[in-house]
């Protein structure tokens, strides 16, 4: 469904994504695991066509995102909590997106119900808590009933009940035959949610494997396995912590809040 091939993206002096290639399969939750600043969000932005790769390509169903016929019905994305105008109500936000997607107005009510925001649908989204904002983002992703779903750190800001709800939602979306791609820096969360794992560090692919396979490498502990995989990458380890922080800054550009 999604095919990335040799993706490289540099912001100024920082190499955020470095020759990344991977593919997503339908009917599975693919975890996208890496420490903060490893290039996960940048990769998501490249898939969505928000940023352009310096080299390489990424396609959805064989087309770059901007060539999709009905983008919202092919890909649903929660890139960040705040991808809405604070002065607009949740319902108006979704109605506007539905109009662009040629999606029936009735679907807006449906997705608001699915994420539990019906009661506050008329309120300005700027008044929402982080958890409610995440739910609005998930509602927008589900709006077009797409076959591919991208979630960038979806459980950020959700309470324990919300975390479980999001996990169940992602599992059921995959069970319906969709490709679900979910990024996280939380290894334990990925162990509970994902079938497959794509592990990156400093923009490079470190492992493309299943959760069970990766855990088996370190005698059952996914956490240990993660650090052993991460440690195999000399680039990623990079000796001193200074280097690692430079990598962390890599996906952020000055003046633009983005994780």
């Amino acid at each position, binding site marked *: 469904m999604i095919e990335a091939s040799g993706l490289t993206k540099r912001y100024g002096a920082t190499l955020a994504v470095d020759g990344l290639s991977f593919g997503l399969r339908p009917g599975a939750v693919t975890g996208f695991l890496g420490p903060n600043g490893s290039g996960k969000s940048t990769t998501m932005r490249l898939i969505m066509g*928000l940023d352009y790769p310096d080299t390489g390509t990424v396609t959805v169903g064989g087309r770059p995102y901007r060539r999709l016929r009905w*983008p919202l019905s092919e890909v649903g994305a929660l890139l960040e909590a*705040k991808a809405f*105008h604070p*002065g607009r109500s949740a319902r108006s936000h979704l109605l*506007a*997106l539905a109009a662009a997607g*040629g999606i029936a*107005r009735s679907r807006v009510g449906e997705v608001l119900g699915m994420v539990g925001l019906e009661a506050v649908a008329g309120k300005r989204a700027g008044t929402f808590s982080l958890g409610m904002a995440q739910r609005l983002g998930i509602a927008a992703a589900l709006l077009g009933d797409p076959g591919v779903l991208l979630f960038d750190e979806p459980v950020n800001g959700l309470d324990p009940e919300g975390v479980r709800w999001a996990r169940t939602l992602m599992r059921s979306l995959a069970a319906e035959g969709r490709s679900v791609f979910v990024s996280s820096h939380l290894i334990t969360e990925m162990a509970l949610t994902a079938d497959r794992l794509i592990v990156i560090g400093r923009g490079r692919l470190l492992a493309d494997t299943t959760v069970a396979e990766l855990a088996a490498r370190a005698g059952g502990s996914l956490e240990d396995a993660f650090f052993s995989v991460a440690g195999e990458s000399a680039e990623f380890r990079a000796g001193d912590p200074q280097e690692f922080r430079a990598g962390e800054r890599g996906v952020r550009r000055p003046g633009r809040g983005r994780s």
Partner: protein
Amino acid sequence: MSALVREGRADAGHYRFRHAARMEWIKLRSLRSTWWTLAITVTGAVAIGVTVGVNTRNAAGDLTNNALAGMVPGLLLAGVLGVLTMTGEYTSGMIRATLAAAPRRPGLLAAKAAVFGAVMLAAGEIATFVSFFAGGLALRHGIGAPSLGQPGVLRAVILSGTSFCLVGLLGLGLGAIIRHTAVAVTVLVGGVYVAAQFAGLIARAAFGYMPILIVANSLSTTKPEPCGNGAAGCPHFLSPWAGLAVLCLYAAVALAAGGWVFARRDA
């Protein structure tokens, strides 16, 4: 996957300009700030026209031009609203949702410009027609109200009404180029208001090309400027239609440049 009721679309086709335009219309109308800004702009323009009318003592002056005097201050709000329509996408993060729904960027900016331009055109025409009639009714000292049938009056009222739209689109283009609200507003105010104060000192010929002077002296006049026989000290103002063409050109250049960088830059 569950079946969805699709509205106004054939699944074999693809999203089009009208889908992006409908999205932009819902976005524009669902912000309260849009309506507040338009209400203040139109009310302010009419109030100034009425005030000028009440204080007019010279029946030989251009009474239509007097009634339309409120359009020039209103240009500032129209331009700022244009800037915010674009920069607001970036400051809020909405741009990510917008581009997810309509990723073909030149088409998206065109849809935004079409919807915003239409709303501003309507607001501008309402402002000029109401200003014209209210300003005429406010005349005292035995001066009669001008009528739309007099030479050049209807043209002045209609052309002045386009100024909110054209300066608004200039702001929208600047917002797409600059993306930061404060910087874009500064450039807009600098280009539209401040430059007009200095242009005459540097090159007298440039005077007539300043946006506010076009609105004040080309679009909203019914009579040629009463200025001495082509004397050297007399500023040269564009004719109404030439003024309109120059304003259109400014907006088109800003939008074209905005569309060009919008399509090429990371969002």
